[in-house]
């Protein structure tokens, strides 16, 4: 009888230790999985300065890298606009045509207007806009 009681108490202790071990294991594993899950990309490289933007004449463009993305910056009459240079069709990099005031994709002759909206061609959606900020003569681009 005495022996049996002992084993049941021991059994409960083992169960408790197992439970605590499981909790500890989870407490160590779950954060590391969350850690490995990619954090917001580009967080590290937000607010990228556009080099030479102040020397850009009105109607012309330049490209800048924001995080992993190429961004095209155009100086318009009212300031700068920036869009992801990646065409929404197949991912080619678009270029700015100052004469037509359009972004042209060299791959499938797609055209986007100066607000990034599709004018012609196969792209399924508009160019992804980027935030542009002017600070004391310098131009910064960041994802929205």
């Amino acid at each position, binding site marked *: 009888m005495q022996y049996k009681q002992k084993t049941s108490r021991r059994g409960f202790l083992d169960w408790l230790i197992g439970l605590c071990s499981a909790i*500890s294991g989870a407490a160590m594993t779950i*954060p*590391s999985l*969350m*850690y*490995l*899950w990619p*954090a*917001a990309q580009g*967080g*590290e490289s937000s607010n990228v300065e556009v080099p030479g933007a102040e020397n850009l004449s009105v109607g012309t463009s330049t490209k800048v890298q924001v995080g992993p993305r190429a961004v095209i910056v155009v100086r318009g009459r009212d300031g700068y606009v920036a869009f992801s240079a990646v065409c929404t069709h197949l991912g080619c990099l678009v270029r700015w045509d100052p004469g037509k005031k359009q972004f042209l994709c060299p791959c499938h002759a797609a055209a986007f207007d100066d607000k990034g909206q599709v004018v012609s061609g196969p792209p399924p959606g508009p160019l992804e806009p980027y935030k542009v900020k002017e600070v004391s003569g310098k131009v910064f681009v960041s994802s929205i």
Partner: protein
Amino acid sequence: MGWQRSFLGFFDARFDTDTGRKLVEKQVFKRLPPHTGWLHVFASLSLFLFISQTVTGILLLMYYRPTPEAAHKSIQYLTGEVQFGWLYRQVHAWGATLMIMALLLHMCRTYFMGAYKKPRELTWVTGVLLFIVTITFGFTGYLLPWNQIAFWATTVGTESAAKVPFIGHWLQYFLRGGDVVAGETLSRFFVVHVIILPWVLTGLVGLHLFLMRLNNLSSSKRVDESEEFPPETGIPFFPVHAAKEVSVLILLVAVLVTLSVLLPWEIGEPADPLSTPSHIKPEWYFLPSYQLLKYFEGPYGAFIGIIACTVPFVLLIVWPFVDRGKERHPRKRPLAVSIGLVGLVGALFLGWLGHVSETDINVFGQRYHIDLLGWPHKLADGEEGGGHDGAGGESAPGEH
């Protein structure tokens, strides 16, 4: 348990699993000497911290970028943006400190209990090597965040390498990968820290454990006495000793997390090779050497200084062959214990001097400025000791 049998049966049918199982069981259930107690857990703590360092280190590597341009930013990113990134960075940084503490305590235990004596001399030697490798880990890892303190501490640290006789400048050039601490240094330290040292340490740990298992743990008996003990009085490593260690490990994890939360290591400002911050000091485990080096000036002094810093380590390595007394119990070896205590207190005192040098301290309401060499200077009320710092800084060991 049908699946278990068939699963193990798969291996049984193909390999001689019995021998392997017996070997493992022999090791796992091996009986440790009856007096194995709480002081023996420091070894396992060190091992656990090494594993923790490996795991957190691998996790940090997922986001860390070892270039001067990106290193600091990537640390900021992983600390600020990545889920639990702050935790792994802090646990890694604190883990390093605790690992060195655990190693030191383990060494003290071994020393004062005479466990390094015959037949375990080589176990002790591998242990000292493990300690040296671990502080090298600390030195190389310290640079990786590429912040001001890391950059300049490494500059000062590698500067003392130039004091090594004959090959000093060559050695320094080699360590830095150039004339100054720069991107090349970062690459080198990175490779040493994440590739070379981990494998060296793993190998040494394996050897250390192997030797330890060959001779079992030491008893407190004389060297020429038999260490045999009745098997039933021995403590089985598993599950008995292991349970004891796990209970301490759990508390260690809590301490590690607490330190990480309450005393986080700052990211600091990005390294700037053009401006030296004041009060650059190495990590605590280098402070005794740092302070000792200060007392040796000039070409011959530097020579002697480097030797003075090396002697303790050499002495540690050869100690089992120097101290050939038969006694293990500390009370029966007054000389060895005294030497150990003097060395320990000396190192602690030098470390403390290194810590307070070039700062102002308060003793019973009287302010003192501690100069470079550790001499206190009385300060009048309101006077600042800062003025001495500039002069002191110029003659810091790294500045020559």
